[in-house]
């Protein structure tokens, strides 16, 4: 992609981000922050993309830097999604109120 294409993608993605988020109720702001936080852990992919060259160049320090970067990115992704899941698990409706649940599987 040339720079102009990249900036075009970036601008459109920004609009998607604004649109998607502006509809979230207050209650879910913390899980939402945590969820978006997990998504930027995608920078982990950046570490994957460049570590091969550091190995090829026999750059030991570069390899150490990137292993740490990959570990950091993984913590961000794995921890982020899990912690969000834990927070959201709290919002699940309990079985004692089957009348109000969406999922009707509980009823015979």
């Amino acid at each position, binding site marked *: 992609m040339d720079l102009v294409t*990249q900036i075009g993608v970036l601008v459109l993605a920004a609009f998607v981000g604004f649109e998607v988020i502006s509809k979230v109720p207050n209650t879910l702001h913390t899980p939402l922050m945590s969820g978006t936080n997990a998504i*930027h852990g995608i920078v982990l992919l950046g570490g994957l993309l460049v*570590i091969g*060259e550091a190995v090829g160049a026999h750059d030991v320090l570069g390899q150490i830097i990137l292993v740490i970067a990959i*570990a950091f990115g993984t913590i961000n992704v794995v921890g982020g999604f899990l912690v969000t899941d834990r927070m959201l698990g709290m919002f699940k409706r309990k079985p004692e109120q089957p009348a109000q649940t969406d999922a009707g599987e509980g009823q015979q």
Partner: protein
Amino acid sequence: MSILATSFLQNHNFIDSLYILAVVLFILGLRGLAGPRTAVRGNQVAAVGMAIAFVATLLQEGVVPNGHTAILIAIGVIVGTLVGIPAARNVKMTAMPQMVALFNGVGGGAVALIAWAEFRRRFPGAGGDWYTKSMIASLFAAIIGSISFWGSNIAFGKLQEILPGRPIKLPGQQLINLVLLVICVGSAVAIAAGTHSQALFVLGVLVAAGVLGNMVVLPIGGADMPVVISLLNAFTGLSAAATGIALNNFALIVAGTIVGASGSILTNLMAVAMNRSVPSIIAGGFGGGGGEAPAGGGAGAGAGGTARSTSAQDAAIQLAYARQVVVVPGYGMAVAQAQHAVREMALALEKKGVEVKYAIHPVAGRMPGHMNVLLAEADVPYDQLKEMDDINPEFGRTDVSLIIGANDVTNPAANNDPGSPIYGMPILEVARSQSVIVLKRSMSSGFAGIDNPLFYDPKTAMLFGDAKASVSEITAELANL
């Protein structure tokens, strides 16, 4: 696997299609997070998107050229998983905000480290074939990533109370920050202009930005920390997008930008709920201030009065004979882990025919939604949790407002004292109810460090002690009635 199949998997159109799929899943996932019923699924959908993007990257030709690289990647991923899973599993619900800060910080750290690796790959004798746009994007990522890493760590330290929550200020703070910023940008410009000094990159860009991150967050009070974490979250997203531009990776650009955009919106929403502006928070404000300058002036109105203290037995009687009780939870409830005790008390009251509702201020606790998470953990039905705009008209019909460890969000000075630093902040109008019971450890001021005239109101009674112990005592007394 045949050669044909291998080359198909490595085809860049196939890889890009996987990236597009991943990005679509991110967007659908975020949309799912918009509603309490779809949120769990939404988060899972986003996680699947991440897994697809991860696999797609590994499939890409040249990413894993040899076993040595594969081992290094495996080490990084395994170590990260082994650290991330227990951290996420074991964190207490009360410590959620600082956990988010920490996860955000390591993300920023990864961005900065990748930028450093890019520098090493491109400069020291590696052909100098670094396109200007990639170089600028990498330098930007290095600065923002480093600020985010160190800033998030300070935010974690403050919320975890390793560092004092009050603002820490140095003389000439603004000037120092400006100088640091000039050093960062100046070093980045020098490198872009052709200076191939790694020392300049590490010290001038990474370290100076790191110090700047520390200096910017240290003077901000603990009460404003959620806004700061959200802002740093947006920053990390933007820096990930910059990394994507540097490495020409579609998934990084889109996902990073979406996080940057959504994080900015969220930051603004939080700041608005606290009647603060993002620039004034960053400039370092009263939030958590030891009560010196701002508290002395305006909020002194109530200081002359005396607070009336009550006993658990009296409180129980008052509650048992009420028609409607509104529970106002705050950070004190979170600290004391009192949510289960609160739920038990509410059940005891409901058994006596009292209607119990919960009033949730948007910034009660230390993050929007913090109280909802805790109360949901204690099985409080979702429809008993009322947002501020829904519950405020109800206070006139409420017999008892029971405030459990909340302070600033109930401070009437926000409505009627233009001299108060929180003047204009929307509050829960508990003072309009028939009577108010405040559970509190002591008369000390809240996180914002300002006095609360509500405590001196004749219809307010204070029940001092740990929130959980007090609530349990009330429940025990209820059983005796």
